[in-house]
């Protein structure tokens, strides 16, 4: 049996009954990493010894008939912007390259409590700012389907690791599409939960009112399983939602059941605006639902077009403040022999931050400056409310909205780096979801002419992740795009 063909859930079930050893699964993952990591460069750090030791302890626990967690013995990777007491938490930035966190993020604690084996920390765009992982200050990650292409971003390392089966599940974070777009580019499942459903404590902040942690997995059931582990109120995160207000579901329960009389909202112009290959696959996917008995309803989202403008004011405003703490004084990179304390700041920051991070800090600082605040930040907040209104109105008519994750498939490395605005425009379908705070999933729904994966985005009302995953599973049951694997042997660097 090829261990690596198992899903996270299948593996867990086998480990829990002792038919597979976590040690073997972990060994298998590390041999996969040794084989493909040089080609993909998904990880900033890996923890082979610690992972094997943890796997061994889980195996012993199971052998002793002790109760094991929901992810018992399953090798998992987390994006390197989540704090861990083991290994550095670099955010793919020279600023934090050697930073070791004194505490674990809440999600990391939850993974460990569920007996997961954390095998490594994945690459990302520096501080999660980007859509291609080209902004990583430490390394370039390559798309497993075509290593000339980007894996998407900012959770490019997590998505590439998942697609290469260098882990059984991964965690990413999504501020404007950073889970869904790389999942789409790498042909895996990515879920951005409702804002407040998963604790942000220990997630290094980019845009605090938009950031949300979520799973990147090989199929929908695994996303549900991961949600069962990470979702819930955290006393350390004031913005996480009280479970008394909105209870956390069992996301796996009933996942195989189709939804009767499902109403799907679509905005035809949005689908028409995508590249032809993308458009065709999205239309095919919608047909698949139609054939399954769903009703397709045309809706309007008049303010959607303003989402990029609003996002790049709000996210950057928050980022300019969130990143102020990286000043060379307390931790992280500090410049050599500064003339005075002002130079500690200016030189340390200038030396360690990459171009995109600097660009966003400057944009955000400008948006918050006296005299500009009302015209930019405040206006963007108002637009955000209008976009929320678009979703509220849409969900009065339908259960979910479907559209592409990205207008294109994975683009070539370097293709868009010269024009940041063009890069920003690639996030047109994902950003509004963060502004509205609602959950959305990216689901493999086919390939373009170059055999690059295409992602279908399904968006649901706030806190309806369980239903969203059932809707996604309806498609997955009727198709097997999620089972296709990149051919890594023919796929070489130029």
């Amino acid at each position, binding site marked *: 049996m090829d261990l690596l063909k198992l899903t996270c859930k299948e593996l867990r079930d086998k480990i829990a009954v002792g038919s597979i050893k976590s040690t073997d699964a972990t060994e298998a993952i590390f041999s996969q990493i040794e084989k493909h990591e040089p080609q993909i460069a998904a990880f900033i750090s890996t923890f082979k010894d610690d992972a094997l030791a943890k796997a061994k302890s889980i195996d012993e626990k199971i052998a002793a008939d002790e109760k094991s967690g929901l992810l018992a013995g399953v090798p998992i990777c987390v994006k390197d*912007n*989540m*704090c861990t007491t083991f290994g550095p*938490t670099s*955010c793919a930035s020279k600023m*934090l390259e050697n*930073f070791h*966190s*004194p*505490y674990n*993020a809440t999600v990391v604690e939850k993974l460990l409590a569920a007996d997961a084996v954390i095998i490594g920390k994945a690459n990302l765009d520096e501080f999660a700012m980007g859509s291609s992982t080209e902004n990583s200050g430490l390394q370039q990650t390559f798309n497993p389907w075509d290593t000339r292409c980007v894996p998407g971003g900012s959770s490019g390392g997590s998505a590439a690791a998942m697609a290469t089966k260098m882990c059984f599940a991964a965690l990413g974070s999504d501020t404007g599409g950073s889970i869904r777009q790389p999942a789409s580019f790498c042909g895996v499942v990515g879920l951005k939960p409702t804002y407040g459903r998963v604790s*942000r*404590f*220990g*997630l*290094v*902040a980019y*845009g*605090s*009112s938009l950031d949300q942690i979520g799973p990147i997995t090989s199929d929908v059931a695994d996303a549900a399983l991961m949600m069962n582990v990470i979702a819930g109120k955290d*006393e*350390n*995160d*004031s*913005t996480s939602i009280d479970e008394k207000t909105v209870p956390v579901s069992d996301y796996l329960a009933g996942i195989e059941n189709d939804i009767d009389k499902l109403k799907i909202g679509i905005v035809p112009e949005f689908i028409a605006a995508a590249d032809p290959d993308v458009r065709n696959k999205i239309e095919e996917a919608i047909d698949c639902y139609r054939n399954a008995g769903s009703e397709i309803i045309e809706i309007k989202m008049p303010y959607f077009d303003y989402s990029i403008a609003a996002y790049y004011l709000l996210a950057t*405003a*928050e980022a*300019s*403040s969130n990143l*102020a*703490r990286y*000043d060379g*004084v*307390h*931790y992280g990179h500090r410049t050599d022999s500064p003339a005075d*304390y*002002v130079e*500690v*700041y200016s030189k340390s920051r200038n030396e360690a931050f990459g171009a995109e991070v600097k660009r966003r800090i400057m944009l955000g*600082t400008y948006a*918050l*400056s*006296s005299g500009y*605040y009302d015209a930019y*930040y405040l206006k963007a907040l108002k637009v955000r409310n209008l976009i929320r209104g678009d979703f509220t109105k849409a969900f009065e008519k339908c259960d979910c909205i479907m559209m592409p994750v990205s207008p294109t498939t994975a683009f070539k490395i370097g293709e868009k780096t010269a024009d940041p605005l063009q890069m920003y425009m690639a996030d047109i379908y994902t950003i509004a979801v963060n502004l509205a705070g609602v959950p959305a999933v990216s689901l493999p729904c086919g390939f373009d002419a170059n055999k690059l994966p295409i992602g279908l985005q399904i968006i649901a009302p706030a806190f309806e992740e369980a239903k969203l995953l059932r809707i996604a599973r309806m498609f997955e049951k009727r198709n097997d795009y999620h089972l296709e694997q990149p051919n890594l042997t023919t796929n070489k660097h130029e």
Partner: protein
Amino acid sequence: MTNLDYKIIVGLEIHVQLATKTKMFCGCALSFGEDANSRVCPVCIGMPGALPVMNKQAVEFSLLAGLALNCEIPSFTKWDRKSYYYPDLPKNYQISQYDLPLNGTGFIEIPLEDGTSKRIRITRAHLEEDAGKNIHAGDAFSRVDLNRAGTPLLEIVTEPDLSSGTEVRALAIELQRIVRYLGISEADMQKGHMRFEPNINLAITKDGTEYRTPITEVKNLNSFRALQRSVEYEARRQLDEFIDTGKTMVMGNKSTYGWDDNRNVTVLQREKEEAHDYRYFPDPDLVPVEVDEKWLSKIKSRLCELPLQKQKRFVEQFGLSDYDAGVLTADKATAEFFDETVKAGAEAKRVCNLLTQIGLKLANEKNCSVAELGILPKALAKLCVMASEGQISASAAQTILVEMSGGENEPEKIAEEKNLLQKNDTGELEKIVDEVLANNPDAIAEVKAGGKKSKKASGFLMGQIIKATKGSANPQMAAKILSQKLGQ
């Protein structure tokens, strides 16, 4: 000589450190004097990924202060980030409140020297986190101690309603009294629990025209003395400057001064306030605070009689002097001790005299409050009643009070042991009076003759009686018997 008249105009910004169990946004205990960076956690030192969680007790303390300062309390308030770079500010932004403070406009009554009071308007009172401390030890580098970072501070801003150094000092002391009464701050000046920043200028009338001198702000004053003196010094300096240069105020332009406590002068720090842009915006890590009626009324129930109210009541209800009432209400425990003693049946003025003349001295020696001397209000009341009824003399009451502070709460027993009880037995006293009269017929004759010598003679007879009783006779009673015997 030109005709020149001036008024001092002062507004105050006051930072009060709240005596909460933990810091404003994390679980660290508040710190004073511990080893540097020993009371810190990822949240208060701004580690990557750490998030703040609001301390509800700090909010309740602030609301309690707001209620005591008669502030409007809005039902919705939020947290904002105030951005500036400084090594003692770990996140390089401070969590504070910008446009929607917990407490809006209000006022504070301050006692004036003439026994009246003055109402000073409060602009706002908001909650924020304190920064750490930079330590400059003369090395080529500086150190940062973040123990204080994240300590809850209530920032109170007044309108420019104060018009002298004395008034500014009075407000500071009154505020200290209030926050201590409410139990929301230790308000220990030595520990920097209260820090003041007065904004000062003058309204000068010269030849019938009014001029305003440039506003100066004196930073970070942490004693009442420095506060008063800095205001008085600035007023003189500004007057001199105006006479020399004629410089007047420009809107939005304020220079910053420090206070040199050794030389008693203000020192210019920044000529013109740089156009600070703090880039305030709502903190996305915290949720807004909604103050509903139910919560507010719960907090309201914790309000107590405020010091100035108490002081005025002591004057009106008990006829105390304003000075004595002020002394007795300086701290809540003493005021309550006084109140309880009176309630237990003692005569207010006598309690006041005993406490101000003896009690406070004893407390001072033992470095505690009167209430902590070990004397029960009931026992003190008993002592007062004994004195009022003439069982003991006023000076004996003082002696007994000193004994009582040793923990003995039975004044009668002390009076007996120390033989301080006055003779009140009429029968016994009558016998003694008869004896004295029998031995002094001349004096009786002089008394009866009337005229000049009469008074002196009766005084002589009283003296003989007191002498015969070795001083233990109740003088009033002895006098009464004597005049009866002499048929007067």
